[in-house]
């Protein structure tokens, strides 16, 4: 094999990079009192280029809580206390961007060497036993300017949680498939607390969106962190609900780079979650939302959650990856029951048939967490329903509509009334908030 001379010499540090004033991503960023706990030694690159911060020798960070000391109340994504200067996390970020670098290979590298040494091994073409892969990495790494890459992270306000480094979440360090790196926006202390994953299909019905929103809202109000994927449909609705509650911070694990908003229409929600909670991704900056990243991402959601609630999912939906990953880790999986005729509830109903506990509302989930002993109030008419009760024809039409979406034609056929009669009833019901229509489809609205 060809012995390529390392073209990118990792040593020594550029002193300019170590100046907190230069590296600070936002003016007035870290609170007075100094830089992050492992701030660089001023002007002091260690001779020989070895990491000056002494890597934690193999294994998870001690203790569950992060040794981060985030600035209280200062949760803006660009203003979180980021490590100035070139730190080992910078090398981990560079390693994560190499081609063919999955979480298993990255963790294997980090278990073998400290980040900086690992990078040097990569440059030397000795990082993997497979010469082809080592050579591929070597060639890719030759073009990477680690300092510039790290500066990009600082500018973007993106922090890095690296496997084996301080600050890496303990719950993941104990996992059997830990992420080698997590890029983050927002406050990592959001992870401290009870966490529930709410997942489901992107192509959900209104019922699913409502339930996800209510669960997210009520769980967050009870102090539970909502973990989800910020996707369209159920995921986004759960996070939107958690934000409405304004209590426990939401946690999002996304499939693309934290700077690549996907889907685009969730841009506002994406920013809100990063501001109020934590946005995590295994994918390096600029990574496109490729299809393979989502099942991999789902295992992180499962690993971070104590309970996983599936709100709505098709029989072959992506939620089953989350459920399998949760079962692997002995996490409780709960499912929201849906209509047996609704294909979007097919998987959740199958889960219930397999013996998963049902999640009818947030109380069911809180009971599963041991946070509540009260029985679920689901099924009873909500006492706070302010809507005027429907008339006889309206009730009939509402029954015909049921809890599945239907076109006008569907309702007409089911209720055996004339289109005009049905439309009058639907117009009354819509005015009173019992039903809603989108793109010619009618759906029943739950209470609240």
């Amino acid at each position, binding site marked *: 094999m060809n012995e390529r001379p390392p073209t990118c010499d990792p040593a020594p540090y550029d002193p300019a990079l170590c100046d907190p004033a230069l590296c600070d991503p936002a003016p007035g960023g870290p609170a007075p009192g100094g830089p992050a706990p492992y701030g660089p030694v001023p002007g002091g690159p260690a001779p020989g280029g070895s990491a000056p911060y002494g890597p934690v020798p193999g294994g998870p960070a001690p203790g569950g809580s992060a040794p981060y000391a985030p600035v209280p109340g200062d949760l803006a994504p660009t203003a979180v206390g980021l490590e100035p200067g070139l730190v080992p996390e910078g090398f981990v970020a560079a390693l994560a961007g190499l081609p063919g670098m999955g979480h298993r290979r990255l963790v294997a590298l980090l278990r073998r060497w400290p980040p900086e040494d690992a990078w040097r091994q990569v440059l030397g073409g000795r990082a993997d036993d497979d010469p082809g892969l080592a050579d591929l990495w070597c060639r890719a790494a030759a073009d990477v300017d680690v300092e510039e890459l790290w500066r990009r992270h600082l500018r973007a306000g993106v922090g890095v949680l690296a496997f084996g480094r301080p600050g890496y979440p303990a719950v993941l360090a104990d996992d059997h498939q830990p992420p080698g790196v997590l890029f983050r926006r927002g406050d990592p202390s959001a992870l401290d607390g009870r966490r529930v994953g709410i997942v489901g299909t992107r192509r959900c019905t*209104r019922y699913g969106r409502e339930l996800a929103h209510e669960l997210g809202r009520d769980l967050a109000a009870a102090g539970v962190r909502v973990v989800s994927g910020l996707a369209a449909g159920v995921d986004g609705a759960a996070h939107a609900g958690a934000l409405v509650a304004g209590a426990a911070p939401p946690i999002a694990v996304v499939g693309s780079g934290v700077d690549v908003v996907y889907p685009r229409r969730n841009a506002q929600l994406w920013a809100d979650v990063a501001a109020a909670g934590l946005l995590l991704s295994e994918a390096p900056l600029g990574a496109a939302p490729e299809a393979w990243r989502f099942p991999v991402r789902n295992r992180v959601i499962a690993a971070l959650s104590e309970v996983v609630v599936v709100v709505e999912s098709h029989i072959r939906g992506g939620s089953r990856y989350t459920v399998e990953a949760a079962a692997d880790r002995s996490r409780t999986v709960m499912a929201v029951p849906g209509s047996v005729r609704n294909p979007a509830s097919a998987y959740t109903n199958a889960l219930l048939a397999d013996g998963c506990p049902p999640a009818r509302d947030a109380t069911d989930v809180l009971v599963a967490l041991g946070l509540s002993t009260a029985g679920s109030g689901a099924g009873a008419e909500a006492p706070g329903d302010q809507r005027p009760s429907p008339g006889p024809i309206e009730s009939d039409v509402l029954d015909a509509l049921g809890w599945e979406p239907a076109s006008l*034609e569907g309702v007409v*056929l089911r209720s055996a009334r004339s289109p*005009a009669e049905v*439309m009058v009833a639907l117009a009354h019901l819509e*005015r009173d908030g019992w039903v809603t229509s989108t*793109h*010619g*489809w009618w759906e029943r609205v739950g209470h609240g």
Partner: protein
Amino acid sequence: MLATIPSATLLGVEGRRVAVEVHVSSGLPGFTLVGHPDPVCREARDRVRAALLSSGLPWPTKRVTVNLAPGMLRKVGPGLDLPIAVGLMVATGELEPEAVAGCAFVGELGLDGSLRRVPGIVPMVGALDVRAVVVPVDCAAEAAVVGRVRVRVAERLSELVACLRGHEPWPEPPRPPDVACSALRPDLADVRGQPVGRTALEISAAGGHHLLLSGPPGSGKTMLARRLPGLLPALEGDDALVATTIRSAAGEALPPGGLVVEPPFRAPHHGASSVALIGGGTAWMRPGEISQAHRGVLFLDEMAEFPRMVLDALRQPLEEGVVRVSRARSSVTFPARFLLVGATNPCPCGEAGPEGRCRCSDAARERYNRRLSGPLLDRFDLRVVVSRPDVAHLLGGPPGESTAVVAARVAAARERARSRGVGCNAELPAALLDEVAPLTPAAASVLEHRLRVGALSGRGLHRVRRVARTIADLAGAGELVDEGHVCLALGLRAEVVPAEVAA
């Protein structure tokens, strides 16, 4: 010697008089054709020569000049072959000038001396101011539609000369076969289930409201649309004549009776260019699909597959009922008052809906829906989601109402619209709505709620009121428009395609 023969040419859907002047003089033998002929017309020289010789008639060894007057007008097509041949015979003394006096000629010549059909006989004959016209025998029925001009037919040039010389009597024009082809039209009774689709179809026919059908493949969109022309009243008077003129000018075969009385149904494929749809063209200004659908139905299946530019070209004719086609050489106005029926899938795979069976990506769906512009969608007064009918309805179930029953209701509703001074309710001016479509208090409150929550725009309000008027007319209700009518009008105006997908 000089001869002048009246004839006509086609400009768009209008006929224009042409005087064919033939001058024969001594000199170097030759044939010159002047007077702005198009390439097809210019080829007349070779066709006429061969036809004369094949028919045993002499070709003059003299200098022949043919002028097509007026010189400014472009002469299109082969229809001037016959008048050139006749003029030549008169100029050379083969025929007496008296034999052709007061008679016009239109037709193409075959090399064997046969007379062939040309497009646009109806408008061309209509433009003539002569007592009689000679046309190819295949065009007899078309020429007879005009009525004012005596129609003489001939099958061959030799036969025509014999008749003109008085050696033989003129042949009788062939009698059109009396077949009622309306029996072959699809009937509404074949449609099983689909109560909302049928209702929308009936309202569309009665009020002249454009209809958009959205639904998965196999939900019966095309089946419904094909039954719409049967619900429309038969064409009468001027409408029939205009429709006949357009069809003739487009070169399409006319029905056996000559006059087009059944509302036309045009379903261009989505590969159609905007010229094919709107009209125009390089050879001659041919009426497009929208003009051929005049007073009938233009059905655009797979509407989102049409190029967006082609669809947006429909907006102006939809508003004005005519389309002006301007080219460097000429500018032509085509009539284009048609009922637009669009059919579209909700997404490329066709399964989108809240049930979530769709397998398309968000981006693909967005691209698909962007093809239909908001302003075009706004032209559809009726936008209906149709779903696949139940198996029970398909296999058993009672047949629905037949076309005849529904058409009778439609005719009655149209009669009521005519009493308001408009052809159909879709043409009601907004200013007249308060007078002819007053709302009951309950109906007004429904509309007010929609306006308040922003689900209805000012223009949408007028459209809903027109549709509600039609629904009331169909129901035989009085002058007042009821809550039920308004609610149904609103329900049949669903946002079936998200006009602007959130980015």
